[in-house]
């Protein structure tokens, strides 16, 4: 396992794209959060969730860890490298686990930086948008237990999205189609939820990976959430586990 981990780590580390993607994930996440925080203007005294607003960037930023995870395995199929890899490491579950650990680790580091950047941006910019104690809103601070939960949960969310994407790519084996499938699985259910009425909407929001997983970001009005924060992250974890499991089974059953 250690050798498999090291081999996968070397492959990931020595690709120029890995560094750029991780940097891009951080910049995109923090950038979108900053743009939203700068553009928002709040007049009402209730109904806003400053922490969730500060973490808006995750919404778009999650695509990049997803792409990184997809590339980790689909590019091996694209270039034929997978055959070399499997010759060197015939235990395919171990190989997938090694890839998963590496992708998760890198996403975790980038996610921590991105979430910290988002919270900082929220702390600095949101008071200017009318979300300050004078208007009845607490400043974004990691010392609040709910904000801490949202921050930690967002990092875990990014890691789980990456693992889900890795599983999908292991099943699909093609870069383009995998990315299409991952983006569709992430983004289509929330749009569909907007288009239909209750109770279908609520059920969709409870089982879709993105809407359920992002429930972790809410810090106010938790009763109106379709699913409780940690339970929602659990739904996403189930998606990630299922896709890795199916991916692993197929990896084992199919010829490369």
């Amino acid at each position, binding site marked *: 396992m250690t050798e498999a981990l090291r081999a996968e780590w070397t492959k990931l580390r020595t690709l120029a794209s890995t560094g750029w993607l991780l940097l891009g994930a951080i910049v995109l996440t923090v950038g979108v959060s900053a743009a939203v925080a700068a553009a928002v203007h709040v007049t009402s005294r209730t109904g806003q969730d400053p922490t969730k607003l500060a973490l808006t960037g995750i919404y*778009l930023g999650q695509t*990049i860890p997803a792409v990184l995870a997809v590339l980790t395995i689909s590019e091996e199929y694209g270039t034929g490298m997978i055959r070399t890899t499997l010759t060197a490491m015939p235990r395919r579950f171990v190989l997938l686990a090694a890839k998963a650990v590496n992708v998760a680790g890198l996403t975790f580091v980038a996610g921590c930086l991105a979430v910290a950047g988002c919270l900082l941006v929220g702390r600095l910019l949101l008071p200017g948008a009318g979300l300050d104690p004078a208007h009845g809103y607490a400043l974004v601070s990691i010392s609040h237990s709910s904000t801490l939960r949202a921050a930690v949960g967002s990092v875990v969310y990014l890691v789980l999205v990456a693992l889900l994407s890795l599983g999908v790519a292991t099943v699909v084996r093609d870069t*383009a189609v995998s990315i299409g499938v991952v983006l*569709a699985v992430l983004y289509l259910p929330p749009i569909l939820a907007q288009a239909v009425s209750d109770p279908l909407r609520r059920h969709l929001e409870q089982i879709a990976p993105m809407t359920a997983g992002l429930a972790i970001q809410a810090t106010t009005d938790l009763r109106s959430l379709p699913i409780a924060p940690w339970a929602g992250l659990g739904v996403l974890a189930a998606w990630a586990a299922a896709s890795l499991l199916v991916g692993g089974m197929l990896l084992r059953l199919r010829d490369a």
Partner: protein
Amino acid sequence: MTSSTSPPSRPTNDPRREGFGSVLRSEWTKLRTVRGWVIGLVAAAVLCVAFTFVVGHGNQEGGCTGPPPPGSGPNSPGTNCYTGHPFVPTGPNGEAVADSYRLVEQPLSGNGTLTAQVTSLTGLIWTGPANIAPSLAHTKPGLAAWAKAGILVTPSTHQGSPYAAIMATGSHGIRWQYNYTHDRPGLPGAITNSAPRWLRLTRTGDTLTGYDSANGRTWHEIGTANLAGLPASVILGLFVTSPVSFQRSSSGAPTQATATFDHVTLNGRAVSDVRQSHSIGTGSQDYYPTLGTGSAHRPGNTFVLSGSGDIALAVNPLAGGDTASSSLWFGLIAALIVTIVVATMFITVEYRRGLIRTTFTATPQRTSVLVAKAAVIGVVAFVVGALAAAVGVPLGMHVLNGNGNYVFPTTTLTEVRIIAGSGVLLALTAVAVLALGAILRKSASAITTGVLVFALPYLLGQLLSGSAQEWLFRVTPAAGFDVLGVLPHSAQVDYPSTIANGYYPLAPWAGLVVLCAYAALALGTATFLLRRRDA
């Protein structure tokens, strides 16, 4: 030797044109012989239709009022639930209209003129909570901008009948309006004790003319209306109505207006001497939210009428209606994502496999190759989008109707525009992401960028609100979705014209022009880079 190399079956009089034809044919062969792409494109159309069905099926009209069930949040729906939609009248040109008002009328036989002085116009706005039926118990003073009081002529009091009316309004001055969509301004200014207004409506055959006056002596003609087929005996009378105000809440607060009419004189032959008071379109089955049914009484020589409702185009969210395209757009996004994947791969796979070098060896005119690819994928995507919409639009309307939803009436022309527009939307997006693929040359980055740029603005637009949302649907590629717009904007109604309510900021084809500009930009950049870079 040289003469035997060219196939004899090809005409040779225009070698350049001939060349492009064969490039086109080779690109078409490449597309149709990759099984995965064909499956993908068919799947795009099937997904679009399937999701149209799901969305239509998931929209049950009806709702719940009353107090929320115990143990649920304060914003939860109530326990008194119903299905089906209330009655929405249809106007003389087939459009959905609001036709709710208080009328005091006297049938007129033949030609005649009714004159009245409006001496006051005041109003009340509902302030009560959302979960109880509006009544006069919770109100505050306030006059809606489009509160209306004046003289109206109509062949019938059935809702949706043709009409013409001269009226004083809350803050839009004197107006001459007929048949729900036509509007001409007269004297400006509000009705006050010091500035009452005189109104006059004249009927001559099928022609109706509206006049206003500040003093009752010098009259200005504001406009005329020709209501073809007006019967000899018409209903002529005073009316008052007051529309829902969206000033304070996005769901709207019903209002009521009260007007005092003085010096009411009829020149003409009344069928009977009895003046009758009607409340039109304010029943429990009528969709327009009203603040009571109004009233009419006669203190001295004056008439005092109170009314609630509107005489104008029906708007969302009041009508709560769906449109021919409201269940289609989600399916289109799903089809868009699949099309983006296929269109990108159409060129990035050539780079990955090195086939692009063979392609450019066979056809050194790289622009021709790109144009041929764009033409092939564009036409195919158009067919996919148009076919999916041609099935999806009637299917969606059928399912919505079956679920008890109100669907705004649409003309065949509008449906054809939505179907063709969906095809063009998919075609332009396919061409743009193909160019993106030629620029980036890598599937991963091209598809991610393609989805983020061409599909996600629509998602973000749904989640944002107000001006940010409108901005997204004006300048980003999501503007292409404006082609799905069905509901007409109305300047005579105050309403929240948001995407969620079915109102798109741009005219249908203007939205496609914006998308076209993005596609042209991408294609131009791709051509430039293709010619400068090695393959």
